[in-house]
């Protein structure tokens, strides 16, 4: 068993209203960042876990996403990275 750190992105499904993204984009414009075209806000989760190997760590985390971490009705998830961590 080794320790892994899996990084996840959970994002509102495209096409759904993203008031948070819009509020941030508006605020950035007012602050003078006129070059901003669009902003999306999602969640970034880091799960540290013990697993036999990278692949096992990733597949376990995918299962966690399906069961709990992401809402299938409104959210998509993606594993952004898996790295070895020290226990």
């Amino acid at each position, binding site marked *: 068993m080794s320790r892994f750190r899996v990084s996840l992105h959970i994002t509102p499904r495209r096409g759904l209203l993203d008031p948070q993204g819009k509020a941030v984009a*508006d*605020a950035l414009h*007012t*602050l003078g960042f006129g070059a901003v075209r669009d902003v999306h806000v999602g969640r970034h989760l880091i799960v540290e876990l013990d697993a036999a190997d990278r692949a096992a760590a990733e597949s376990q985390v995918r299962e966690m996403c399906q069961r709990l971490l992401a809402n299938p009705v409104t959210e998509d998830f993606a594993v952004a990275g898996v790295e070895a961590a020290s226990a």
Partner: protein
Amino acid sequence: MTVHKRPGDPAITPALVAEHGITEDEYRRLIDMLGRAPTFTELGVVSALWSEHCSYKHSRPLLRTLPTKADYVLQGPGENAGVIAIGDGLAVAFKIESHNHPSAVEPYQGAATGVGGILRDVFTMGARPIAMLNSLRFGALDSARVRYLVAGVVKGIGDYGNCVGVPTVAGEVVFDPAYDGNPLVNAMCVGLLKESELMRAVAQGVGNPIIAVGARTGRDGIHGASFASEDLSDANEAKRPRVQVGDPFTEKLLLEASLELIHSGHIVAIQDMGAAGLTSSSAEMAARGDVGVTIDVSRVPVREPHMTPYEILLSESQERMLVVAKRGREDAVRAILEKWDLTAAVIGEVIAEPVYRVTEGDTVIAEFPGTRLVTDCPTYTPDAAESPAIRALRERDVDALPERPEESDPVWTLTQLLSSPTIASKQWVYRQYDSTVRTNTVVGPGGDAAVLRIPHSTRGIAVKTDCNGRYVYLDPRAGARIAVAEAARNVACTGARPKAITNNLNFGNPRKPETYYQLREAVAGMAEACTALGTPVTGGNVSLYNESPRGAVYPTPVIGMVGLLDDVSRAARATFAAPGDRIVLLGEPTASIGASEYLQRIHGVVAGAPPACDLAAEQALIDTLVEAIGAGVVTSAHDCSDGGLAVALAECAIMNRGRQLGARVDLTPWAGLPLRALLFGEGQGRALVSTPDAKRVRALAAQHGVPAREIGAVDGGDTLQIAVGGRSIVAKLAALDEAYFEAIPRIMSRPASAAADSPVTTAV
């Protein structure tokens, strides 16, 4: 026992002592007490307990002068919260507390953890929290940084209280450049308990175990208590403690578990680990019981590895409690906590030997004789002198100030005042607070005081916080009297009889003579008013060093008032209720505009003497209101405060957005007064009531010697019309509504930023 220095502890040098905020005199006192030099751990413990925040060293002599007694006061100052009896074997616990410094650094968490702390102070008395209030002061809203603070503080208060499930029902928000860089965030909690279940935080019983309950201890907020006792000057930036993060979910579990523990009979005392955490809670409980205690830091559940005893003792991690249980009941205590998914660890016990002792395993690392750690803290009475500059401001003849050309139309002035953020509706704020959970809220935010029904009873309580810091700045004694009187009047406007107060003294650096003068005079004024109005002080909080690089905040003694209604179904609201009702002014108009919001908003002037406050007249007004409302002859009552009579009339007409009712009044009897003073002067001792039976109200007022005059009627139209002499002032309700309700949302829709921006405005 021998006290051991821990390997790796820094040597005690004068510099280290000074860094701990301990003066040379205080250090000598410490050596006297110990009979030797302190260890590093002991130095940390003392620096926390002798900090201003924990020891009240600059305020205690003054606080002793406050009236604290009445036959219904079950618990006065000195406990986690004050308690008053309300009849039927029930009692109300309440207390206010500040989180100014943490909120200046991190508004969201600072405010949230302030709410958490005051909730714990109330439920540790055995009371179920039933209402929260908050009293807030910010700089001018033009600044993006101030908007960031406002948004963060309000969200922090809301998220925490909403999650725990206690309604936030009242409060106040004032915006003034005097608070730029140093906002004030005071939170008050009110709880309900059975008299028989009143719990005190008094350690007792040799052999009884001391148990740490709730969240684990991390490195949060170490030296928060001493930090709260320093100026927010930039030099201190690096020393700032790591912010505390609140967890309202754990708080809710802790609340339920604590009440269950208290009702179980398994424990003898319980206290929140608040400022200076484990150290102050254990030392204070021991001192109240005059017993010895020993604490083993190695048994405290920690969140992070390698924490030193110094850190464990001083951590201000949130959502933790210290419990003294009955010996042999440890498992029963643990079972209750486990039900709520909380942990408990026995970390010490009450001992026969009169010492406060800390061990790490078997090694003694700190030991203080008796309870002297708590009782021996020095107190100070610094020099006091009024600032000549402020005196000059007060004595300025503001009534001679020429009018602005726009003022030829009083509707313009009225609209300006209604849209002044300090007067404007705070709906943007309280809409973010759950004010109806627990189904006791009879009158919520948006009028004068809030009213809550007492379950299984016909009675209710009314609560409100108040303070006009500008008045206190210009005249501390008069300002503090007014703060008490206004809080009492607001409560009386619902029909409740004011009973007792808690208070939060927010001041600058007491070592400056002009600040200490303000503190001394304000406490004197508060004492006078509380004595006159029969509302003893049951507790409070002192927050000093509220200074930013720009200077001290306005001296702001916030008063939290609790009143009692016999028949809650008779509670009056502030807004006109029925077309046809007559409008009666209780009290007299004023000839002065001194210290008014009008002067500040319209002329940018902070000067003049605050209105006179005749406490006997206030008492008579209160009696009249309570009797008239209790007799059911009054359909609405609203006090006149910020913005004066015209603003109060407008508020009566528009504040209930679901039912705005126009009115016509005639102020011709006072046509001899300067018009702007008549309309916008802030005379005290006044209230506007509407009634179907003006004669009866006038008769009741006459009995109490309160001037009362019928000034007009609610006509239910869409204007407010004020006649004075030959002149008629007509304001459309729609325009007043827009000024009053849209002012704050409009400003708050502009962007906010944590980054400091250059403040332009300064007071005066």
